[in-house]
Structure formats: structure tokens, C-alpha cells
């Protein structure tokens, strides 16, 4: 045997194995998907595929309130055939630069920018457009580029926990406590919007920027503004995709789960009839209609989430954290109607009786969130505020709840009461160790320093307002 022939064989085998790659990333379906009849499953896949595509070949569905493009603007002039001036009065996007695609609406033609002057909006194009460009012509700069960037950044930073489809089930997720957010319900815990609304763009931005202390969500503070925006848009996009899938399965196609079909078969219908009926409904656009309703509602909600009027409103400034205010807060906390202590415990250690109570439909004792994961009420002594430590953040937690958890909303509570509660919550970590207790002299007579945190708070408020 010649050694060389074997070696060549070996290297070919090696090359072959190196080329042995897995298929591109795929969106996964929610668990309920498996309950559908095969034809309904096919329909869901078709809808999602045509409106959203795949992770690597995504589709920009214009109906969704998502900023897909760097800019949609108009031409304000064309100094030379290969140069156009774009209207950047609304502010040019930071990511526009050499290599950005530019799409002219009238000619339906794509071109690429080779030089870009952000201040004047002057773009030099890679090739001469086939038609002359008129002033006022609509152009899309970077069509779909934000979504594409978002996907790229999401894959780099987020995907291994939050999953390709935003299901909070990436490969790393199983090691984490609490589990990463599953975006597909459209529910996000820490928002400044009212109870019924989704998070605003700012809310998502803040969470990515500041991280969620006490969890594995780290701070991505040093991402550029454009990168942050791209991730936020992509997360919103994934969330909407997930919601549509969910709504489609739960409402539009509720009649075509295995269970529903079995019931109807028991009632005398045949399997073939149901499928024919389904196909007829699809052909007549009936299902599309119910989908449209769902989509409209969802779009309205997401759009509304960015409007200032749907944010949690505060009319009065936070009052100073006086002992009286804290005492009132404590009273409210213990109030039977407010039920704070039933979960967070009398002393705020997160050990209230609800932790051990059985709720019908839940797998075990204790509290569960919308994702059916067990949750523990926050221990208020740790000084860790997951949704942010600003007074406004705590105000929102009480007013609009921690969405998706058993934490109720207190949207009818009087504002001063909410503030008293906030002041009380702030004081809990310092109940034993009052402010300044690390200092020697305070250690000696800590008896008089009851009021110290309050004093410090009020002073800092003054500083803030200066």
C-alpha cells in the first residue's frame, strides 16, 4: 500500500467533514402548535413564513409598527447624475454610510452609497441611476437594514439565552434563574407604560442599557445608539411574531386543535369534512379576517405603547421620605385590601403566605407567572431593584404592576398613597442599618438616627431639583 494514497484519502475525508455544516437557524414554534391538526399547522407556518420569513431571510412586513429602514425620506436635489441630496431634516440615521443600500420608489431600483455626508445629506451613488431622479422622489435608505443589523446583533448578544425565536429558550437558558424573558406573549415585566400596554421603545432600551440587577441580564451599556435601536426593533419584531403565532393558534384556529376536532368527530362530523371546511374558510378569507382583527389590535397596542399618554402618569413630586410618610406606607403595606404582605411577607422578606398557597390550574404551591414558571415575591431587603431604582420605577411597579406576574396593579390607588408606599419600600433595606451607620460616630448612637434616611432623601431631592 502506498502511504500517499491513504493520506490523500484522509485529507479528503477531513475536508468533507469540515464542510459538514448544519442548516441555517430556524424559528421554533410554541408548544401549542403541536396541538393543531396538520393542515392548520401548515397554515400557521405559511402565515408566519410569508409575513416574517426565517431568521436569516427575514421579511419586513410594513403593517407592523417597526422601523425597518434607516430612513424613509425624499430627494431634495441631485447635483450630478451620481449624486443625490437627501432630506435629513428629520435627522439622518447614524448607521448610514458607505455600503448602505438606497432604494428609489419610482424606478423601483436599488443603488448603493459610496460616500455619505451626514450633515448635508449628500450621497454619492455607486452607479448612475437608470432614470433621472426628480426632486421630492421618495427613497428608502437602507431598506430592512435595521432589522438585518438587529438580527446580527441579536445573534451575537442575546440569542444564546433568549433563543432564535425569542422564546427565552436558548442553549444557555436552562442554566439561568430566573429564566430569560420569552417575548412571544408580548408581555415584558419592567415597563413604564400602563398595565394594558406593551413596553415602549425606551423601556426596552433602558433594560438593555442598564441590565436587570439580580438576574443574568447584563448591562449592554457600551453598545452604540444605533446598535441599541436595532436590537430594540428586532426584539419588538420577534415579540410581534410570537404574538401573532399565539393569537393565530389560540383564537383563529382554535377550532382545529386535536381536541376540538375530536369533539366534533364525536359529535358526528368526519375528519375530511372538517378539513374541507377549513380549506373553504381559508379560501374565503374568513381566517385571514380574524387574523386581521388580531393583528390590528396588536399593532394598535404596540403603537400606543410609545405614546406619552399611555405612560404611567405622575402628577405630584415624590414627597420627602419623612418618618410619617414611611409609617403611612407601612400601614398601606400591611393593609388587608392591598395584600402586599400576603406575598412579600410582613417584614418584606418575600416570604408571605401566598408562597405556600395552592392555586387551581398551577402545577404546585406558590406563585407562577404568565409563562408558568414559579416566581418568588421580591425580598425587599436586598436593595436590588430589578426594574430600576428610580422613584418613578418603583411608582410604575406599583401602578402598572410587574407585568406577567401575580403582582397586581394599583391603578386606582391615590397617588400620595403610592408615594408613601414607595418611601416605605425604599426604607426597608435600611431598617436595621440606618444611613451613615457605617461611620464610627453613628454606630455609637444609632438610636437617634431613625430619621436620617428620610432627611438624606429629602435633601437629595433638593439637590436633584437644583
Amino acid at each position, binding site marked *: 500500500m502506498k502511504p500517499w494514497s491513504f493520506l490523500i484519502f484522509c485529507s479528503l475525508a477531513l475536508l468533507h467533514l469540515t464542510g459538514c455544516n448544519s442548516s441555517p437557524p*430556524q424559528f421554533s414554534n410554541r408548544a401549542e402548535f403541536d396541538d393543531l391538526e396538520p393542515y392548520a399547522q401548515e397554515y400557521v407556518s405559511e402565515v408566519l413564513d410569508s409575513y416574517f420569513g426565517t*431568521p436569516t431571510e427575514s421579511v419586513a412586513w410594513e403593517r407592523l409598527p417597526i422601523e425597518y429602514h434607516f430612513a424613509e425620506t425624499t430627494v431634495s436635489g441631485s447635483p450630478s447624475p451620481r449624486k443625490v441630496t437627501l432630506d435629513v431634516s428629520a435627522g439622518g440615521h447614524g448607521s448610514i454610510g458607505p455600503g448602505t443600500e438606497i432604494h428609489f420608489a419610482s424606478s423601483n431600483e436599488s443603488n448603493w452609497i459610496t460616500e455619505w455626508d451626514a450633515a448635508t445629506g449628500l450621497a454619492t451613488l455607486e452607479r448612475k441611476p437608470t432614470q433621472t431622479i426628480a426632486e421630492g422622489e421618495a427613497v428608502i435608505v437602507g431598506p430592512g437594514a435595521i432589522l438585518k443589523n438587529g438580527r446580527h446583533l441579536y445573534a451575537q448578544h442575546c440569542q444564546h439565552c433568549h*433563543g432564535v425565536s425569542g422564546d427565552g429558550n436558548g442553549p444557555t437558558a436552562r442554566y439561568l434563574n430566573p429564566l430569560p424573558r420569552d417575548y412571544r406573549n408580548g408581555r415584558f415585566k419592567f415597563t413604564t407604560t400602563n398595565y394594558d400596554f406593551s413596553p415602549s421603545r425606551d423601556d426596552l432600551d433602558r433594560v438593555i442599557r442598564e441590565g436587570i440587577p439580580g438576574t443574568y441580564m447584563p448591562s449592554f451599556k457600551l453598545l452604540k445608539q444605533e446598535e441599541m435601536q436595532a436590537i430594540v426593533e428586532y426584539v419588538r419584531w420577534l415579540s410581534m411574531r410570537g404574538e401573532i403565532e399565539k393569537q393565530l393558534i389560540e383564537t383563529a384556529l382554535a377550532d382545529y386543535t386535536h381536541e376540538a376536532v375530536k369533539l366534533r368527530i364525536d359529535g358526528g362530523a368526519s375528519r375530511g369534512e372538517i378539513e374541507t371546511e377549513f380549506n373553504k374558510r381559508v379560501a374565503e378569507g374568513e381566517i385571514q379576517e380574524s387574523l386581521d382583527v388580531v393583528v390590528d389590535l396588536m399593532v394598535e397596542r404596540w403603537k400606543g405603547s410609545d405614546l406619552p399618554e399611555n405612560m404611567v402618569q405622575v402628577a405630584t413630586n415624590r414627597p420627602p421620605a419623612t418618618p410619617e410618610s414611611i409609617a403611612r406606607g407601612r400601614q398601606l403595606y400591611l393593609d388587608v385590601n392591598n395584600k402586599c404582605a400576603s406575598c412579600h411577607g410582613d417584614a418584606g422578606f418575600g416570604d408571605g403566605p401566598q408562597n405556600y398557597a395552592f392555586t387551581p390550574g398551577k402545577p404546585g404551591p406558590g406563585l407562577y407567572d404568565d409563562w408558568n414558571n414559579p416566581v418568588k415575591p421580591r425580598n425587599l431587603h436586598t436593595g436590588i431593584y430589578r426594574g430600576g431604582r428610580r422613584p418613578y420605577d418603583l411608582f410604575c411597579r406599583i401602578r402598572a404592576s410587574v407585568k406577567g406576574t401575580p403582582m397586581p396593579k394599583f391603578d386606582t390607588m391615590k397617588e400620595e398613597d403610592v408615594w408613601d408606599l414607595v418611601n416605605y419600600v425604599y426604607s426597608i433595606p435600611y431598617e436595621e442599618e440606618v444611613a451613615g451607620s457605617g461611620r464610627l460616630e453613628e454606630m455609637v448612637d444609632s438610636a437617634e438616627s431613625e430619621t436620617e434616611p428620610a432627611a438624606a432623601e429629602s435633601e437629595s431631592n433638593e439637590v436633584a431639583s437644583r
Partner: protein
Amino acid sequence: MSSATTTAPESGHGHHHHNPEDRLALLKQIWMFSTDHKVIGIQFLVTTLLMLMVGGALALGVRWQLAFPWENMPFFGLLFPTEGGQISPEAYTMLFTMHATVMIFLVIIPVLAGAFGNFLIPLMIGADDMAFPILNALSYWFMWPAIFCFGASFFFGGGPGNGWTSYPVLSAVPEAAPGSGFAQFFWLMGVTLVGVSSMMGSVNYMTTIINMRAPGMTLFRMPLTIWGMFITAILQAFALPVLTAAGFMLVSDRMLGTCFFIPSGMVINNADPTVGGGQPLLWQHLFWFYSHPAVYIMLLPAMGMVSDMLACCCRKPIFGYKPMVYSMAAIAGLGFIVWGHHMFTSGMNPALGMTFMISTVMIALPSAVKVFNWIGTIWGGRPEFNTVFLNCVAFVSMFIVGGLSGIFMAAVPVDIYIHDTYFIVAHFHYVLFGATLFGVFGAVHFWFPKMFGRRMDETLGKWHFFLTFIGFNGTFFPMHLLGVAGMPRRYADPYLHPYLENLLPMNQFMTICACLMGFAQFILLFNFAYSLFKGQKAGMNPWLANGLEWVAPSPPGHGNFAAVPTVYRGPYEYSAPERDDDHWLQTEPPKSSPVPEPPKPEPTPDSAPVGEDTGSSS
């Protein structure tokens, strides 16, 4: 068989199922629970060469991620179908942890002490077997539970992701890291079992070398290989118990709720705060108290073997035999008081840091002396540029780099900057791969004829050397620059950090070189397998070397020597001016000696009881 040591049976006596002509006799036994040191040595060698490929594949995974972060990874990517082959960061931590683990515990330590120690020690000192053959066999068979444990941690627990150093608290709290659950436990068990294996070898080598030398084989007539093995055995005997103890402490921290290494109040993965009052630095002290000497365990035998091979290839006595021995002893001695240099940035009394710095810098001295002596050995020799010699020169050349880069990190202030950067990675790869593995490759080619009676193919050997050398330097030399540029170790995606962005092209170049190097190892495996059957037949002494192993048949039969050899001189008397022949076997009686040694020497008091032991065990 009890007479084997004292009478002079023909080779192969005691083994009826093969004849001396059967060149693969030793290989045929590797499936068996043989207690023959040669079989055990070959068992170790084959196992470690296979493990080398496993460790190499893991390293290529690491390299791939560094060159093409978050791209579809070949092989390992298949574990992540939904992500399209994009691995997750905890898989990356698992890759480098297991790469280091496999390479250190399953390749380098067992290939030196296990494979060559076993094969060479009795042959080189003129003994018929190890002092405790059953213990010896056990030391090999304890490798398999260890391999099983490492494999189990890989497949069932998601793989430990705490680095091979396994620093607590990360490794001590099961919630702290992915794969820190079962995987870390299995990993610790694996390390313990490897330790048991090493310890059995160590006891055996010391006893054998002290008690079973052939008549005339004084301590200073021993080949440097034996000195290397001897000193290594001592190092293992003294250092290993510390690691084993530390390992059990860590296991009990994890499973019994003790807190040797866990301070109180740590909140990990949203679990309740830890109770306890332990000290994570304790682990680092214990771990490095073993693992720094372990670095020399991974080097000294290779130094010894290279000395032997260089002298033979250059047909010249070793330059400065005694300084070589003393430097090895000095390295071993100093090796026990330098462990703190792994912890300069960990938080340590500054005065202690100074002490460790001085001892660490001074350990470069014996290493330097050895390098000079190797160059002195080649100086004035007439080297044949065969594969063995090339690998040995590469050993010296690479060890110079590895040694010199060590001075940077021995200096504490400089170490503050380069600690845990790729500079460190470059340094220890130059020592452990550049030096030790090239030495091992040379040794495989050199002693292959003794193991199997055939020579390895020279052309393939040279190609393997050439490609490995280029691939090696292309991979690891730029790592020095990465380190200087401040690229920390164990980053799944260094390019997240703007100051490291421009290092991507260099990392891609390194990955290509690493793939080349990985490919080259297939040549070695192929050469090994091919030469077993088709290699050129070798006689008793194909290299015309002086050592005792070359007076035994190739391969030696059970009991090794036809008669107990008598040693008249050291192993390096090449090109003696009074002889026409350029080699001078250790067993050849001096012509001037009027009274030749008796052909059947009296068994020394040392070797007699050992002979009985051997007899009863076979």
C-alpha cells in the same frame, strides 16, 4: 519465571503464545491486562496518542470560535441545530476547559510518565520489569475510569466550564456555571482518578529506579531519561496528595455543604446567599502547589529523553552530564516554591509576592543551563538530520522561547499586565507543546524500533515534523502579540471590546495554522500504524546507541534481557577516540580490564527480592 532475573533465559521465555519473530507481539497484548511494563507502556502510548487527537479537536473548536466568532462551527455546531450551528458561550467555556483537561491529564502527563516511563525505565536500568508489576498495570487501568469520568462530564453534564484550574467559587457552587452540576463533579473524580494512576506510577518508578538497577549501573551512570523520570516521580509523590485533598474539599463543598472555599454572602444565580466563611484563595494555593510542579512533571522526562536522543544523534557524549542532573534537581526543588506566581493578581501579601518573584526568576537559571548544555552537546557532533534529531532540535529551539517568555510573567509588575492574557497561553504552549510534545514526537520515532522491531517511515516523519513545526509556530507565536495587545484568555468573543477588534485577522491566520497542525497529526497516526506493519525492520540497535535498552531484542521479550546486563560505563560514550566504532555500549566490557566481570553476576541484595516479586506476579 522467578529465575528470569538471575538465570539467562532466551528472550520470550515465559510467553508461549508468541515467538521472538513476532514483531507485533507487544501490540497484540494491549487488549489484555498484562503486567509487562512494555505492554503497559504501549497501552499508555496508544491511549495518549488517541487522546491527543481528541484534545486537538477541542482546541480547533476554540480556535474556530476565535477566528469566526458566532459563525456556524463544524462538528460542534451540530449540537446547536436551532441556532444554525452557532455555539453558545458556555459551550465555548466547555471546549477550552476540556481541551486543557484532556491535554494535561490524558496526554502529556501519561505520555511521559506512563508511556515512556513504563517502557524505558526497566529497559534502561537493566531490570526485567517494574518493581510492582500489578500496581503498574493498575496505574494504566485507572486511566480508563478517569477517561470515562471526563467523558461523562462532557456528555451528561454539559461539560464543566470552569477552566482546568477550576477556581472556586465558580466551581464550588453548582449554580454558578453551566455544566457545574454533575459535570464538575465528574471532572473532579476524573482528576482524582488520574491522580491515583500517577501516584501508582510514581511509587513504582521510585522503587524500581532505586532498587532494580543492573550491576554497575550507579546513579551517575543512569541515562538522563531515568533521572528525569526519577525526579518526576518524586515531584508527583510530594505534590499530588495536595491536589487530591483539595479536590475532595471541593467535592465536599459542592455535595456536603462544607465551605472550605466559599465565603459568606455570595449571591449566585439568584440563589440564596451562601453561608460559610471559606476562602477561595485557599484553593488557588492548594491547586498551584500541585499544578506548578506538575508543569515540571510535564517537562522533566522530555528533557531527559531529548538529552539521550541528542547525544545519540550527534554521536557525542552529553555536554555536562552532572550539571544536567543537578539542574533537573534544582528545577524540581525550586518548582515547589514558585506556585504563588500564578496568583500575583489574586490578592496576596506583597512581601510574599516578592519572594515568589525571586524564586520564579531563579528557576530560569537551571533551565538556561540545560539549554546551553544541549547546544553544547550538538556542538562538535556529527548530527544525522533524521526525524528524531529534528524534533529534538525543535524541542531546544522552542524551549528557549518558552523559557524566555516565562521571565516576563515571573516579573510581578509585568505580570500584572500580562496575567491571564494570551501571553500566558503562548508561554505554556511553547513549553508544553513546543518543548514537551516535540520531545515526545522525537521519542516516538526513536524508541518505536525497540517497541515494535520496525522503524517509522522517515519521509512521513519529516513531513509530520515540518508541518507541525510550521503550524505550531504559526499558531502560537502570534499569541505573544495578542497577549501584549491585552487580549484576555477564555473570551468567547474578544472582538466585542473595541481595543481588540484589530486582532481578528491575526486570529484567523492562527486558526488556519492550527488546522494545518491538526492535519499533520494524522500523518503521525498514519505513520505509526503503517510502520507497525510495513516499516523497515530494525535490529537490536538501529541507532547504534549505547543505552542498555539497545542490548535487548527488538521488541524485548518478557523479562527484557537475555542475561542480566552488567554496566561498565555511562550511556554517552560516543566517538571515544580510542575506538574505531563511534558507539560504546554500556554493557561492553572494557578491553583493558584484565578480569572481565563474571558472566553470571551475583544478584545484588536489592534486586533479589524484587525478582521474586516479579516471579510471583507473572
